[in-house]
């Protein structure tokens, strides 16, 4: 017989679960409120979600303080791992979610917001992402990932039109394949190490001096395929434009930020120790992956005729750009990753919200997508302020100083240079220059073309005060990023450095 196991409650560090539990409790309370009284207005659910996310954020900030004082916090038999990058990425996840949830408060009614379940699933999804980043146990990562993904597929489909179903089915099917890759990759790692925890796997591999190099590389091949899908690296990116086009702009913007930062954190945990141990193969593969992803998606973005698809390709390109940080693998580059993503969140929030407020219900006659470039032509004449805002976000995305993303780009390129990746830095700079073209294309349409008669009725047709506020926040974040960069960097460096990345 087995001996009964005695576990001291204190050793569990139940507090490590607090942030995620808050999100889950939020989700459950939304469901319960709906049970008690149906037919409530969506703004109530938005407020509840925001409230719980605020609590969540508070818990995270608290953890941040504890982390800086005592270092990494482990909990629940070391399944939970609250280190600096876990806390940082959770903060980005939660803040990102807080900024995107109010986008539900549109003036027009869309299908998904009629469901309280939408908000519940949203909260479950956030909890899933939080679990995914706050552990280095492959099982836990997998379950967190799937919880979040399954919720996300549903959220996409709830938009309830053919394109969104198509998007959800495509995403789901490819996601199932990627899940298969992930499981197989973990299996190989388990086979050579007898463990499913990344730090132990790393230790055992190092003790073996990478003798089973074939297994290691094969597992990495599967893992790159799995995370390549999540991070939309070429050629695993094909879902991105279709899924962005099919889902509502609000959700598409969300997808371009939050799931990716979660995947980046896991990729950091999984790939960087190998990069550091000098596994040349991985370096080469990541190098090629980064370059191809940046370049190819930039080229495809040029030929798009729909703004949302263009932004989809642009976000692929940005993800490729940031992936370079994992390849470089220094503290500076990892800091750059978080900085870039924090700045990118604000800019992309703005860009997608601008699409969202201009969303009409049915396709414009003669157009096959929601946001063709023509829709914005001559916008400066009918809505100068809106055009300027959109132009601002485009300039920031293009990396024009002094707007937000310029600093992220500069810091990352700088980290590449100071680690000796000069050619990579050049390619990154060159790609930023190419990217300027397609962002400029939208600006050309907005500022230099004649307005098309009748299109101005679509402008801001979906706007409400909350959406305008969000645009304002995004614009402020983008413009005044200059002043935030330094304090932000200090904090991020502190967290990243103390987590050993």
């Amino acid at each position: 017989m087995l001996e009964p196991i005695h576990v001291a409650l204190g050793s569990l560090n139940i507090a490590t679960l607090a942030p995620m539990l808050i999100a889950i409790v939020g989700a459950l309370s939304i469901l319960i409120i709906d049970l008690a009284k149906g037919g409530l207005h969506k703004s109530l659910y938005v407020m509840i979600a925001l409230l719980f996310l605020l609590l969540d954020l508070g818990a995270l900030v608290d953890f941040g303080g504890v982390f800086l004082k005592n270092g990494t916090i482990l909990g629940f038999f070391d399944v939970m791992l609250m280190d600096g990058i876990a806390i940082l990425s959770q903060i980005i996840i939660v803040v990102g979610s807080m900024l995107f949830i109010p986008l539900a408060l549109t003036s027009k009614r869309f299908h998904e917001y009629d469901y309280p379940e939408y908000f519940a699933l949203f909260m479950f999804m956030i909890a899933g992402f939080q679990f995914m980043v706050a552990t280095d146990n492959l099982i836990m990562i997998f379950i967190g990932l799937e919880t979040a993904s399954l919720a996300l597929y549903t959220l996409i489909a709830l938009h309830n039109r053919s394109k969104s179903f198509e998007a959800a089915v495509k995403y789901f099917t490819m996601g199932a394949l990627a899940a298969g890759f992930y499981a197989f990759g973990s299996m190989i790692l388990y086979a050579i190490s007898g463990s499913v925890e990344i730090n132990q796997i790393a230790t055992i591999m190092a003790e073996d001096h990478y003798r089973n190099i074939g297994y290691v590389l094969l597992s990495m091949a599967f893992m790159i395929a799995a995370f390549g899908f999540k991070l939309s690296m070429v050629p695993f990116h094909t879902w991105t434009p279709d899924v962005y086009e099919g889902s509502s702009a609000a959700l598409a913007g969300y997808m371009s930020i939050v799931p990716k930062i979660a995947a980046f954190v896991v990729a950091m945990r999984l790939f960087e120790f190998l990069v550091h141990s000098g596994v040349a193969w991985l370096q080469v593969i990541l190098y090629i992956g980064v370059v191809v992803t940046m370049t190819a998606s930039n080229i495809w973005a040029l030929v798009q005729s729909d703004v949302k698809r263009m932004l989809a390709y642009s976000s692929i390109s940005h993800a490729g750009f940031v992936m370079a940080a994992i390849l470089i693998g220094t503290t500076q580059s990892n800091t750059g990753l978080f900085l870039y993503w924090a700045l990118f969140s604000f800019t992309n929030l703005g860009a997608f919200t601008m699409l969202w407020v201009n969303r009409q219900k049915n396709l414009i006659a003669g157009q096959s997508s929601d946001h063709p470039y023509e829709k914005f032509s001559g916008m400066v004449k009918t809505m100068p302020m809106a055009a300027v805002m959109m132009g601002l976000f485009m300039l920031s995305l293009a990396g024009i100083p002094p707007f937000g993303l310029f600093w992220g780009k500069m810091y990352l390129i700088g980290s590449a240079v100071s680690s000796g990746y000069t050619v990579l830095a050049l390619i990154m700079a060159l790609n930023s220059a190419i990217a300027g073209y397609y962002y400029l294309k939208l600006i050309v349409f907005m500022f230099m073309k004649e307005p098309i008669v009748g299109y101005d009725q679509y402008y801001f047709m979906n706007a409400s005060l909350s959406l305008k506020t969000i645009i304002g926040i995004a614009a402020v974040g983008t413009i005044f990023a200059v002043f935030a960069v330094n304090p932000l960097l200090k904090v991020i460096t502190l967290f990243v450095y103390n987590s050993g990345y």
Partner: protein
Amino acid sequence: MELYLYIALFAPLVGSLYSALFSGSPKSQQVGIVASGLLFTSFLSSAILLTYVMSGHTVHVEMMTWMATGDLYIPFGFVVDQVSVVMMMVVTIVSTVVHVYSIGYMDHDKGFNRFFAWLSAFVFSMMVLVMSDNFAGLFIGWEGVGLCSWGLIGFWYHKESATWAANEAFIMNRIADLGMLIGIFLIYWNVGSLQYDVVFAEIGNLQPVIITWIGIFLFIGAMGKSAQFPLHTWLADAMEGPTPVSALIHAATMVTAGVYLVVRSNAIYDLIPNVGIFIASLGAFVALFAASMALVNRDMKRIIAYSTLSQLGYMFVAAGLGAYWVALFHLMAHAFFKALLFLGAGNVMHAMHDELDPFKMGGLRKVMKGTFVMMTLASVALAGIYPFAGFFSKDLILEVGFVEHHYVIYTVLLLTAGLTAFYSFRLVALIFHGEERYKLFGIHPHEAYKFMLVAMSPLLVLAIIAGSFKMTYFQLVMNLLPATQYHVHDQTTYWIMTIGTQLFVIAAILFAYKKYANWSNVPDGSSAMERSFFYKLLWNQYYIPKMYEEIFAKPYAELSRIAWKQIDLKIVDATVDAIANGIYKTGENTRDIQNGNLSTMLRWMVVGLVVLSILAVAFTVGYNAVGA
């Protein structure tokens, strides 16, 4: 003093934001007045700083730290020293004048408020550029002026040519900026800092090869901004913008940023004289090349633009030969009389209802006395007649060439001086003298507003007297720049040279007057001269724009003509240059990867996996082979 520094720097920004507030609302005079007033404040602060600097101090502030983590440390500060204060004075004087002038010039334009927002934003960026104490700040200002000039050239965005020109300028500059960015990275990588003082102190310790590359890449940036060959085509096309913009950006400030960069980096260029010679030679070539194109052009503003190009060539000659203070001096003098010339041209354009062909004018001196006097005096200054500003600065460059024994450059510059005089007075003669050909076109010209003329008068005064500051100026900048005096030692040679040059120039003026002052018809392309090879060559700007089109654009257009038509690419076609077309084609051809079919997508994922695992196996086999 720091207060004045901040006032000088931020007053234009405040003006810009203030104007931007009103950009949506209809034109209101007060916007222009407030913006001009703020600019004037900035000018006053600069003047106070000038007196302070002249008493031997410099002001250096570190406004904030932008990035300070790990080994990256970029403080952001501003410096007012002997060089930057000169630039500040030039920028603030010219821009104040241009602001006031624009109140009149843009009087009837719907985008009046928007115009001032852009214009003040431009001045702010330019101030950042000249006042920054490090390369990062310089680059930010650099990009900022590029952006603002894009907005200002394309200000009349409903004109397709204006849009095109704006994009052309933007793209050409981006190409050059990339070069400059590489240069800055090289500096940072090798020196570990971007602060001027640190960089210039350390630069000597680097390998010569690296310094050479740094110099070359920085100069590529300068070439783009200062429109040096072969990146010069955008400047002439940029004349599509409103004329005050041309006066401010394309004569006095932005295009001289390249010269400023070279002057500022004199510590770098001093170490690489070979690059310096190249810069000087290119400058001399551009001087002659641009002047020759100005000879036959029939567009008033383009003639002045080519003249600017030519004068920039002069400045680069001086800078390239190590006479940095001379380059800066000519920059200053040139800013005054060239801005004056442009503003005068603006008056003429207004009077002639946007007619630009001087052959269709003539005899305007009767109706536009003020403008006539100003433009004539500005042209005299440009031609370099004693005692006007141009004489002191331009002749000095000739002397530099002579003293440094670069006789070829000297000869080229001398010849260009003659050409300069000729085309300037060809323009004056055609516009103000001779028969009143405009009557054929039913135009009733009128003089500009009084206050516009008054606004121009400071520039006139400076164009006349700027030369007399030479020694004061020299005393000032020799604190920072190599203080080499350029004197032809032999008195006789000196006098022969000076008087000879003067006579040559005066002869060219007289020749121009004789040929054009009594012009009576509007040429229609049939005269013998107009059919001559050289005329055509010059008229077509050496066929360079055409060549760009033939070599780069045409083949691509031919290859992809059919695919082109299916998608409306007109805008992109115009925006994206030849290289982008290639990229675009690639995108078109490969977007089939994304054919929207789920099965294909899944297959791509498997392809990715298979490729990765093949690589894994290959590496393992190779690793084991090596290991065994």
